[in-house]
């Protein structure tokens, strides 16, 4: 490994080192401000390194990792999201009087894991990245250890994630046995070559079964129906900033590696189109229908993100360059929007030690906290896909790609599912702007920190800016996708 390789890897090395540093510091220094500053600073530095790495991209560092502009696009998204999360987390942790060293250290390790996923070019790196992320999440989810819901969520996630990881590993083993390679693209290309000989050659059966088990591993992380059941419990039980991390960064990283592995070959080629079509339809309708009558905002957002991942699967099924671009653009819009929504939840949960997740707690905040409510309203509208927000254009892009690819049925299913979703999204807004009940206690007028206000403002501005003037963002997505899928 040369020095240049190390420079290219800097975006991964910086958060890993910073995480270690925070952990070491925590041993003899309980200064929350310092830990927070280090974490945010490290992620900012990592973003800087991402910027510099554009100069040397694309570069393959060992067979495991590839630093190309596709990876850098996702790294930017992931680190920015994690950095904003770290900012939202500070008052949240402060009000709960928790030690913060481990939290920030784990957050940085999770960021490293997500970074490795986004850059992985090899099953080993994929598994490594996934495990770094997952192990960090086990602890983060259970971070509020006095809270039984938090612990329950962590336990559930531990068991189910371990189960899904075992499927993933088994899948990798089968694919290796059939194709003899662990490099992502060659492996999937080999599966595509073997697929037509199914029934004649034993390798073909192994390869296809391996593909299924691999996909189950992904589907668990993405919470596609019927692998979604952990997600409402974990979303609800985890501390709000961690929920945000699961909903945004971890999904983005897994989707990044999924698209890198499958995109260039095409789902149809490897014989996965039928199964994933069924899953996508189940996911879109299942997620939205389950969210319909939810009275808990975090669970509602959990089901909502299930449904959104269904839409992403539509883009993946559409395939081709258009599908890949639509998928990447959707991830961008989804991550920014969901982050904004959870940002508001986190800030409201920072006002008292109890989580602000019951929808009843949001009744009338439109009058008490007009700015926060307006922010949440914009994010909800974007999730619902109403113009002029990023969510609207993202849906348009996915629908366009699906129709162009001739997947009309899927496009119609997606439109119908989105129609169902409007109901529960608008319900949140309605609740926020309802008159307060008489006996509502006066909320503490604790102002949220200036930095958080700016962070939310930036997110709102981005969501609306993408919705109004999408050209530069589409261009960025086009450039990123071009490196894995030349037009």
């Amino acid at each position, binding site marked *: 490994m040369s020095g240049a390789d190390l420079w290219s890897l800097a975006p991964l090395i910086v958060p890993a080192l910073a995480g270690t540093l925070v952990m070491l510091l925590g041993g003899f220094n309980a200064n929350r401000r310092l830990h927070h500053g280090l974490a945010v600073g490290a992620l900012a530095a990592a973003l800087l390194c991402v910027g510099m790495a554009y100069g040397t991209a694309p570069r393959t560092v060992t067979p495991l990792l590839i630093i190309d502009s596709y990876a850098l696009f996702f790294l930017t998204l992931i680190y920015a999201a994690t950095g904003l999360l770290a900012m939202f987390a500070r008052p949240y942790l402060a009000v709960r009087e928790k030690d913060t060293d481990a939290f920030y250290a784990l957050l940085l390790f999770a960021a490293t894991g997500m970074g490795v996923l986004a850059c992985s070019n090899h099953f080993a790196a994929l598994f490594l990245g996934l495990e770094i992320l997952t192990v960090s999440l086990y602890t983060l989810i259970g971070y509020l250890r006095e809270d039984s819901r938090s612990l329950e969520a962590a336990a559930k996630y531990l068991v189910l994630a371990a189960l899904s990881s075992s499927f993933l590993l088994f899948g990798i083993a089968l694919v290796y046995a059939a194709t003899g390679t662990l490099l992502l693209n060659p492996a999937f290309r080999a599966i595509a070559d073997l697929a037509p000989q199914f029934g004649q050659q034993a390798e073909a059966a192994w390869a296809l079964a391996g593909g299924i*088990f691999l996909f*189950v591993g992904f589907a668990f992380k993405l919470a596609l129906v019927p692998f979604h059941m952990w997600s409402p419990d974990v979303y609800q039980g985890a501390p709000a900033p961690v929920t945000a991390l699961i909903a945004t960064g971890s999904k983005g990283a897994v989707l990044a590696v999924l698209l890198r592995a499958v995109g260039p070959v095409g789902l149809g080629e490897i014989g996965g189109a039928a*199964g994933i079509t069924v899953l996508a339809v189940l996911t879109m309708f299942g997620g939205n229908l389950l969210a*319909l009558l939810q009275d808990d905002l975090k669970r509602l957002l959990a089901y909502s993100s299930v449904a959104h991942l269904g839409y992403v699967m539509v883009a993946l099924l559409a395939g081709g360059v258009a599908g890949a671009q639509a998928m990447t653009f959707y991830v961008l819009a989804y991550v920014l929007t969901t982050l904004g929504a959870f940002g508001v939840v986190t800030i409201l949960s920072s006002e008292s030690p109890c989580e602000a997740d019951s929808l009843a707690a949001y009744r009338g905040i439109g009058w008490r906290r007009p700015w926060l409510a307006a922010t949440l309203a914009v994010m909800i509208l974007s999730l619902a896909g109403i113009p002029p927000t990023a969510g609207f254009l993202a849906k348009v892009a996915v629908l366009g790609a699906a129709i162009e690819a001739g997947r009309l049925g899927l496009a119609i299913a997606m439109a119908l599912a989105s129609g169902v979703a409007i109901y529960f999204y608008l319900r949140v807004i309605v609740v926020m702007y309802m008159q307060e009940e008489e006996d509502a206690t006066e909320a503490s007028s604790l102002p949220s920190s200036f930095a958080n206000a700016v962070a939310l403002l930036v997110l709102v501005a981005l969501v609306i800016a993408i919705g109004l003037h999408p050209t530069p963002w589409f261009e960025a997505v086009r450039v990123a996708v071009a490196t894995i899928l030349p037009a």
Partner: protein
Amino acid sequence: MTLSLMVMPPLIGAALLALAGGRLGRKAIAVLACAAVALSFMAAVWTSAPLLATTYESMSSLSGLEFWPQVSTTMEGVPYVQEKLYEWIGVGSLRVNIGFHLDAVAALMVLVVTGVGLLIHLYAAGYMADDPDFGRFFCYMNLFVAAMLILVLADNLVLLYLGWEGVGVCSYLLIGFWYREPANGAAASKAFVVTRVGDAALALGLFLLARDLGTLRIDEVASGAARLWAVGDPTVTLVAALLLIGAVGKSAQVPLQVWLPDAMAGPTPVSALIHAATMVTAGVYLIARTHAIFLMAPAVMAAVAIVGTLTAFLAGCAALAQKDIKRVLAYSTISQIGFMFAALGVGAFAVALFHLMTHAFFKALLFLSAGTVSHALHGETDLHRMGGLRHGRALPGTAALAAVGVGSLAGLPLITSGFYSKDAILWASLQPPYGHPMILAGLLITAGLTTLYAFRWYFMIFSGSPGPASRGEVHRPRALMLWPCVGLAAGALLIGFLETPETLGGYHALGDFLNPVFAAAEHTVGGEHAGFASAEAAHTAELAVQGAAAAMSLIGVLLAYYFFVMRPAWLERLKQGAVGRLIEATWRSGWGFDEVYELVFVRPYVALAKLLRDEPVDDVVDAIAGTARFSSVLLSVTQTGRLRTYAGALVFGILLLLTIWLWP
């Protein structure tokens, strides 16, 4: 600021009355409203004067002075005054301005609208003096004048449409002015809905023009249509037909005439101004304005003539059987506008406008007289309960004024304006290429009917012995209600001399003024010797038509006198017979159009509305929502919170995928 000076005063007046009407005294309101229309009238004179100067030698000294607005001339040499305020709509190549255009035709209209409008405003100040909603009334009246002027002055069809809808709204508001009476509200709605049928057609016509010509400026439409379409082209025929339907709706022609008799629910000055003198003639004006389109669609021209003749005849019959003092006049208005349509249909546009002008005077006069009579009899409107008001201390002045109006409506020869304008129509209806003897015959018969119902109306009110209503104390009219009628009576007697037939001097003041606008049309109508072999033959024919018209009119008077004054009993006996009863019932109901429409349109529509009252479409939507809700509940059952369920689901998912993948 030239033409907008005409539109602004009533518009500002309406705004002031709307905002501050409640705080002003009655006198202030009346002065403000009348002053607004007076200013508008002065502006109309000021802007029309230079146009007159270009026509008449005697007035040419006017031109050249800085005082008058700038006059331009088109390539064909038609003088006009123009003012563009600003661009209203700019979409693609379509440009629509708030811009005004005054040529001879528009000048005639604005002078009538503001002149007659001013007299009616003055009358209304007296007539409405006791009404609690004095301010609201004049607000609507001023708004109406403004909208009518916009309609007349618009240099494009979109702005014309704005005025067209504006007068429609004012008509609606004023018909339902006494809104506490539900019948008045129903009449207002009926007027609005029925005219809307025409308005929709007009809008479609405009869309077609905009689509094919890319412009809606009236001058460009005329030249563009000539360039794009051949005479008789289906598209231009369709456009003309749609414009005709619009005109038919607004001008209460068959088959959309049913709203006008009911519109009499409004105060009488409203009937005089809107439903006699100005708004209802907007259809005539529209066709005159877009005559270039109509001339390219000969089939539609024939339709215009037929609609006009038919309407004139049907409404003339209906007027004969009415017993409400204002409904007679309403049917008479429909009938007279039918005459105007017949003139338009035979290509005699200037003649139609001539009749429009004389009709504005004598019909306004008749309505105001009717208002005075009702006012004097404490709101009585039944003709059968009146009589003898000519005599003694009753209403001799009003009787004399009404006699002038009735005479003019009946077209008494030589002395009334109605004679000259109606005679011009009759003569035009014989001339090629659009004229036809059948039209002449229909109009001649109607002219006789007109005299009959006009004098029936007069005799029943003013002659004979006093009826139950006119026996008691008679409420003397205010001076403010009398003097405007004198002005109108003077007009009804004198303006006929502006245009006399060849046989009676051949003085063509009005024709000279208007005809340049219709230059292209006038060349094609009549031709040499008006289609007759020689000048002598034409002269003889014209004399014959005049003689017939005069005879019809005089016979009508005599018949009316005989039936309604000398031998009313005979008529009663005639009405007792089965045939008589049927005819009377048919005519009184206006040929039963209302009943037919009730059966064909209103009932099915109401039935449909009742059917849809519970919104069956919503049931479908509700069913979808219910299904979603139910599925949500059903799915929630899977969310047990138990780890083993979740793990089981995971395994189920794998099995599902395997099944799908390994499916043969």
